[in-house]
């Protein structure tokens, strides 16, 4: 009985163990662990590691998040101030590459928010480009409303979510 229990426990966690192992490998492979269940196959997605970061860059740009108004991708003067330090950091270390991810608050439709997040990230990239940071050093992507930082339904939570982050 004990043997069976052990086996049970092991197998219960095996899919997750597998996932974790895959993550640390940073591979692009999509593995297909199929489970046949009455004509439908379940697929597990292996998640690609985020681009590994230069620790120096992290330290310099740790606070580089800019915020936006509802349904807008315009940079406020406060945002521009924040970005000035990012520009200097990028210019000093010409080898650094960054990723800008754009986000939106949970209101509205997901796809529109995905596009909005993208526009916000692009606003930041455009500002950097205008100030001498080559676009080739900047990767831009959007998470829309899929990576909320603040969980509430009030305006203060919403405003925290309408952001572009530099990593």
């Amino acid at each position, binding site marked *: 009985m004990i043997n069976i229990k052990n086996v*049970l426990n092991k197998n219960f966690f095996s899919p*997750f163990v597998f996932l974790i192992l895959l993550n640390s490998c940073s591979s692009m492979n999509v593995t297909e662990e199929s489970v046949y269940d*009455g004509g439908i196959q379940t*697929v597990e*997605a292996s998640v*690609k590691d985020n681009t590994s970061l230069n620790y120096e860059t992290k330290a310099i740009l740790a606070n580089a998040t800019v915020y936006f108004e509802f349904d807008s991708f315009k940079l406020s003067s406060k945002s521009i101030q924040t970005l000035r330090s990012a520009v200097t950091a990028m210019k000093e270390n010409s080898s650094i590459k960054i990723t800008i991810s754009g986000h939106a608050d949970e209101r509205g439709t997901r796809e529109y928010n995905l596009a909005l997040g993208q526009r916000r990230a692009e606003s930041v990239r455009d500002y950097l480009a205008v100030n001498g940071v080559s676009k080739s050093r900047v990767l831009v992507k959007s998470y829309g409303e899929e990576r909320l930082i603040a969980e509430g339904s009030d305006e203060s939570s919403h405003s925290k979510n309408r952001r572009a982050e530099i990593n």
Partner: protein
Amino acid sequence: MKIFFSLLFFTQLIFSELVLEITQGSEDPYSIALIEFSGSKKITNEINSIINTDLLRTGEFKIFRESQLLSIPTNEEDIKFEDFKLLGIDFIITGSLTNEDKFNISASYQVFNVQKEKKIRTSKIFGIPNKLRQLAHYISDGIYEEITGLKGVASTKLLYVTENINDDKIIFNLVVADSDGSNEQILLKSSEPIISPSWSPDSKKVAYVSFETGMAKVFIQTIATGKREMVLENSSQISSPSWSPNGKFLSLTLYQDGNAEIYILNLKNQNLTRLTNHYAIDTESSWSPNGSKIMFTSGRSGSPQLYEINLRKFSSKPKRITFEGNYNAKGSYLSSGEGIVFVHRSENNFQIALKYTNESFIRPLTNSKLDESPSISPNGNVIIYAITENGMSMLSGVTLSGAKFRLPARTGEVREPSWSGFLR
């Protein structure tokens, strides 16, 4: 060993199963008496309860079970119609199930019109013992069609995304289930978000957006085999997939031009045709039932509104079709082509609304605060969407006649529903 494996996955499936709650019927339901089917109790109990739930969910019926009746007929000939007229019952359903052999079950059911005092339908169906649900749904559809004249959707499928926390890790599942949220089967498990799932017109494939590669990419997956492929692998971010009615094209949103633009991909030869060319956001494309038009959400007027472009007219310009309110998005066409369903912001609430083509005003269908991703049933009568309550999202449904139901998950959250077409 195999039993343990199957038990494991069984428990995992129960984990996020949806629970159907019917919260409101339509104002003017038919009264029907559902007589318990005759046959082996084990099977008939399950079939009766599934038919009962299916019919209740349409919102069109007030159901009388045996305990509420004045007399229970044992066979066709001895139905005392007077007893049913007294209770105001319009129709009687009877049926029986027989095990033809180990591998076949046959079900027959009859519908009687109480006013006319006669049988109006009798049908016989064959099924398999371990596909009882399918058989019951088929019977429910037959009963619904006979009484209302509308095609039933109990036999159709739902596609949706669930989000659960397992040991401090977030797991997203892309799930296929029966129209009542039962019989869940997981198509994709991922630790990164999955959004915008969409059925192919033949209901054999699904397209969806997955963040597993680090950014939004569209995948097409064949349901039966699990085989999947990434769409336009060499491009950057892609999202918002929508199949053309003939299954040959996929409209997509690409971000390579510096802002979201809509393209059409020819699935056979991988040719990409650009549809929109405007510096504002253009996304959430969806095809008209005859494939001649595409509707999409665009921010070009200053706020998200719905636009329509005619594919058959060379160099036709997008035409704006929503003018009420400052946020109208995620539109989809009714299968009759008579109107559209979309997300509409009224004051500070995001609701699902209906607009008929020949009317100028919007009809709100829901009245909560954060409604999104509406999807219309293939018979055009039910709209399923996601609502957020107490910070948790769940599925909810509303019929055109005002009946309402909910499909919350037992644990975790569920969102992004998509209704399949008719499967037969």
